[in-house]
């Protein structure tokens, strides 16, 4: 059983869904970002999603764009993401990586999967790589036993929903709204629709990401999804000054939100 399957089952045994927290490595600097990821684990994230910053993040909104740019200015390397994977695993949560495709391609699909595995990572979320675009990646990940986590959106057709859910292992990453990462006021119906469409296409676990920023939203989403993913709200709380206590407070709010569901 994969590490992701185990954590979903363990949360289910507690009568709740997992909280997934995203942070870019290297923001505001590499040591602080690793400390911030440990805070995520301590304050209640079950899965930590580590983002190696990329120069052209087309699916990210202003907050994460800013963080990525600052991290790159500080000289962060893709290697640092694997160090972060180790740190998260040691802290006791399940690490996954969210990476834009070119960073994976330049390392080599197989080497990326092998390095992730060696560091103790469970899977990779690919925001600009769909299963039909890179069969080489899917093959390399299967060989290493690394989960391939693909995204689905409200615009995803029924045919593509099936293709994507078939190729996803670990979980399916559903975005409830069309648009880049960032906080949104209302998620409700659209989120519920995309979750049920993914389930109808055969997805075993569907997590909702993009737009979740408050405890109340987490409670709402946890009522029908298999996991809640929070990124921008955590990056904003950490901020340029690397405020770990403000981050801890935000994570605690979301963790309580997830636990308040049902």
């Amino acid at each position, binding site marked *: 059983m994969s590490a992701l399957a185990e954590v979903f089952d363990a949360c289910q045994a507690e009568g709740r869904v997992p909280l997934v927290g995203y942070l870019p490595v290297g923001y505001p600097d590499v040591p602080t970002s690793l400390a911030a990821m440990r805070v995520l684990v301590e304050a209640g994230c079950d899965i930590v999603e580590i983002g190696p910053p990329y120069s052209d993040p*087309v699916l990210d909104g202003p907050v994460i764009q800013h963080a990525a740019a600052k991290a790159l200015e500080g000289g962060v390397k893709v290697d640092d993401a694997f160090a972060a994977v180790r740190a998260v695993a040691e802290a006791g949560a399940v690490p996954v990586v969210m990476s834009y495709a070119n960073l994976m391609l330049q390392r080599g699909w197989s080497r990326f999967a092998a390095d992730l595995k060696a560091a103790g990572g469970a899977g990779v979320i690919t925001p600009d790589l769909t299963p039909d*675009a890179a069969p080489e990646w899917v093959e390399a990940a299967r060989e290493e036993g690394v989960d391939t986590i693909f995204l689905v959106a409200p615009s995803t057709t029924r045919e593509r929903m099936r293709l994507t859910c078939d190729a996803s292992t670990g979980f399916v990453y559903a*975005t409830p709204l069309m648009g880049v990462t960032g906080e949104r006021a209302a998620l409700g119906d659209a989120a519920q629709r995309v979750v049920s469409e993914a389930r109808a296409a055969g997805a075993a676990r569907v997590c909702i990401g993009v737009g979740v920023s408050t405890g109340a939203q987490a409670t709402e989403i946890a009522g029908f999804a298999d996991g809640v993913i929070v990124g921008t709200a955590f990056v904003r709380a950490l901020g340029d000054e690397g405020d770990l206590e403000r981050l801890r407070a935000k994570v605690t709010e979301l963790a309580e939100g997830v636990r308040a569901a049902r």
Partner: protein
Amino acid sequence: MTGSLQEAPGPYFGEFGGRFVPEALMAALDELTDAYDKARIDPEFTRELERLAREYTGRPSIITEVPRFAAHCGGARVLLKREDLNHTGSHKINNVLGQALLTKRLGKSRVIAETGAGQHGVATATAAALMGLECVIYMGEEDTERQSLNVARMRLLGAEVIPVATGTRTLRDAINEAFRDWVANVETTNYVFGTAAGPHPFPAMVRDFQRVISVESRAQMLELGGLPDAVLACVGGGSNAIGSFDAFLDDAGVRLIGCEAAGDGVETGRHAATLTGGRPGILHGSMSYILQDEDGQTQPSHSISAGLDYPGVGPEHTWLSSIGRAEYWPVTDAEAMEAFRLLTRTEGILPAIESAHALAGAIRLGRELGPGSTLLVTLSGRGDKDVEQAARWFEMLPEGEGDA
């Protein structure tokens, strides 16, 4: 006609091209591909596009022989394909009219576009005004500064121009921002992509809309006595070049030469010569060559010409380079500006700085081939937008205004 290299359909050109985009855009790209596949074989669509080309753009564009310029090209005969004479001043209008017509077919009411030098933005704003579409143009902040005249033109045409202040504040960041807009507004919005790069169907579709350049020029050359020894065009993303090459691809005796922006020189690292100094990678939705560091982070490009200042290149060019059918030469800022000066002084034609890179390639090739050779150069745009920058380069501005 098996074995023809013309009109390659995509999504892959050899191992380059494809579609590397967020899932959220897949449905829109499928819809666009489908609409385009239907439109291209619909006589009504092609008739309307041809009518616009004739009555609005002013096609066919003429061929001008430039003997006084050619005197500096080793005695070669030099002819220019005059895309600079098109309405709006460059080849960009050829593509934009096609994509704007497609937008209407898709039932969408809003277009977005990226622009570097501003020529594609101006062309898109023009087509939007003509067809009654809402229009938003993304332009890197640095480019809005060096091409302020075109910003005003777009605004006069009714477009909203959004300066992009992230990253390197140039074309590449404008494309990122346009993709973000598209993801959020895909139901009402069509992305009118300006160059023969990006995810499928853009490389093949933009090439098809620009192909008119070489279809005309090939016939015009035959009428003038025969095919040229070489066709030269500047390459940023590569839309005028691919349009200038396509109808000649099966003419083995015609050399095809794309002139990339070498900025301060490829060896300095301050350049935009992607096929000369880059390596394979994924950027803006397709697999091609890009300028990147070891990790795969895109490197900032540099060129005096905003339209060529891009760290990627269209996948079909990468393919043509890999199979040896086309050559790609680096041309520095200084070489391009010398060619700019020469054409202006000897022929009274003010080229866009982008197009001046192709003229510089012709000077080099003419000196190599000598008398008896014939070179066809695509003059992709006119230089009105570049007057201030050129005047600064040649230190022709009045005292106190020339320092920047």
